[in-house]
């Protein structure tokens, strides 16, 4: 276990390092990407540009610039180019919103995906199965920002059932927190429910034909108990894996579209806005932040896996 953790930590550091280099490189090879122009604002003079290049260190070699930026990420005083605010502070402000989105949506999509997956597997081949399968495929086929915009317009703007935008911290008022987030949760969940329920359905169908299920039936255990205790338990493992990975990436800010369309002001939205302005510091910080969660959740999934299945060794 200790060796596993050490090895994972090393490979994680390596991945993060390479990702930061690649991100930095992408933004450094852009023609017209010179941040001095954006810092100088309009009506800049060559003298001003030179002064900015000197104070911000753009005249230094790329490697030095990279090292400095990375250092600032870790000391927490990285400043963005476009509006000169502290990047780490911004991320810290957006994180609770992104986390709220991930937690609520995660619970929602897991619950409905398992329910739907089990139900369609039990009713396999019947009308209910076909119908719900088509619904699941529709869920997979819809762009989340389109669904989100329609929800915003019809349920929020027109009918006034749910609030448009706004975020209430959980610690301030849990009920209002959930009320303001219910539309983003639903929109984000749709895709995952569609996908997970299909995977679960095929796994349950696979497992049902296994010998031990027949044995359980022969012992006279009720269908319900067989399904929940024997079948579900074994067929849910791939879903747990997927969940770990997806949850990690949503926490890391990859639910950009959902955050943007509902104006949640989370980490993902911050990333999208910064990229649009070619603002390197926040992009670099958020990419690292996101990759960190992805790699972390990968590791957690492996550990959970080993815990669920004694035959898997961590190596």
């Amino acid at each position: 276990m200790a060796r596993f953790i050490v090895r994972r930590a090393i490979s994680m550091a390596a991945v993060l390092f390479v990702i930061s280099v690649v991100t930095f490189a992408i933004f450094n090879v852009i023609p017209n990407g010179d941040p001095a122009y954006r810092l100088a604002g309009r009506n800049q003079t060559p003298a001003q540009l030179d002064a900015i290049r000197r104070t911000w260190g753009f005249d230094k070699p790329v490697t030095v610039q990279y090292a400095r930026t990375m250092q600032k990420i870790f000391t927490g005083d990285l400043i963005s180019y476009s509006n000169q605010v502290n990047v780490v502070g911004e991320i810290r402000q957006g994180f609770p919103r992104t986390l709220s989105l991930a937690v609520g949506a995660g619970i929602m999509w897991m619950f409905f995906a398992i329910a739907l997956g089990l139900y369609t597997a039990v009713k396999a081949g019947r009308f209910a199965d076909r119908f719900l399968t088509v619904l699941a495929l529709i869920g997979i086929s819809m762009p989340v920002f389109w669904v989100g915009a329609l929800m915003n317009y019809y349920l929020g703007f027109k009918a006034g059932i749910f609030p448009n935008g706004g975020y209430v911290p959980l610690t301030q008022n849990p009920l209002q927190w959930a009320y303001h987030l219910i539309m983003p949760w639903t929109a984000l969940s749709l895709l995952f429910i569609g996908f997970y329920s299909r995977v679960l359905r095929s796994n349950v169908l696979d497992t049902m034909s296994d010998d031990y299920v027949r044995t359980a039936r022969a012992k006279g255990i009720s269908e319900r108990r067989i399904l929940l205790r024997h079948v579900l338990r074994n067929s849910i493992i791939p879903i747990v894996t997927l969940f770990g990975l997806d949850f990690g990436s949503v926490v890391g800010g990859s639910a950009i579209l959902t955050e943007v369309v509902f104006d949640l002001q989370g980490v993902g939205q911050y990333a999208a806005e910064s990229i649009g302005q070619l603002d390197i510091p926040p992009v670099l910080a958020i990419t690292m932040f996101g990759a960190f969660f992805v790699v972390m959740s990968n590791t957690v999934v492996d550990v959970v896996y080993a815990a669920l299945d004694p035959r898997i060794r961590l190596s």
Partner: protein
Amino acid sequence: MPAGGRVSVLPYGALRRAMAIDPAVEVGVEQLVGRARANDEPVAGVAPSRLALRRLRRNKIALTFGMLFVVVVAVCLAAPYWSHDVAHTDAFKNHITDQVDVGGKLKDVVSTDGVPIGPTWHGRFFLGADESGRDIAVRLLYGGRTSLMIGTGAATLTILLAVALGTLSGYFGGWTDTIISRTLDIFWSFPVLLLGIALGTALALGGLQLGPVEIGGDSLLIPLLIIALVYTPYMARPLRGQVLALREKEFVEAARAQGLGPFRIMFSEILPNLSSTIIVFFPLMIANAILLEAALSFLGAGVRAPRPSWGTMISDGVAKIVSGPHQAIVPGAMLVLAVLALNVFGDGVRDAFDPRSKLRVER
């Protein structure tokens, strides 16, 4: 199977795959049945691909949706005819101050307080106008050409790249494998959208110079290349795994013993065995590419305005939804229709060709 203990807490596939019925066995059974029916008459064996096609042909739902996609493509290809002969306008002309004849009554295309006309269900402004007074139906068809072109182009390129990379790294192993696999891993660990936006913004500013070929920042090839690039690892990884297994098979060994070179083996021995995976991936990849184009356009890093694509139209429509929701609903519904058709058809293709494959693409 271990006696006594709980069996089959399996990781994705591993043991299950080993125990599951091999498609080859299935082929054998169907052939036997065929032979029995033929009463000792000699019959030709049926190729697995023939059997797969037969299975696909029995799947009426998948076929219906496949046809639906063909219809969508055909309708989009007919864009110039609709534009010229029915709507009498093009995708860019605005008619803000014009009036349109709807069943005998003259109506403003865009009212004085800026509300565009909804679907007229007549030739002109069949699906209504947008805030700039442009004909949505015409833009939808031309936009469909853009989206479908990017979708199919990106999917094709992804497959070409992934097959090349997967085969090279899987077959050669060693250093080649290490370099290719690690590079793919890095792209893999970037969130797809972040990488897409970063590349999209960067390339839109400066364009792209590939040797003697220069691609302008507003070219459709830019989103196409980006989408192909970010999806390549998702396909190259499973292909590499397959090649790793195929490399050890007897027929490859036999080819090697005959003195065939590695590239010859890859092309004529390995590649045909990857075909079912490639066929399964293709429709699902197009669907994902179309969705990614829409997402990138929505975030301002895809197709550039004023050129229509389903993505830019949805994005415009969402921004102007208050003045008329049809501006967002129409292009979105069309996109969902096309993507759904591809997904259902792709599902059927997977069931027919390779029921055990699990394609997963992050969005």
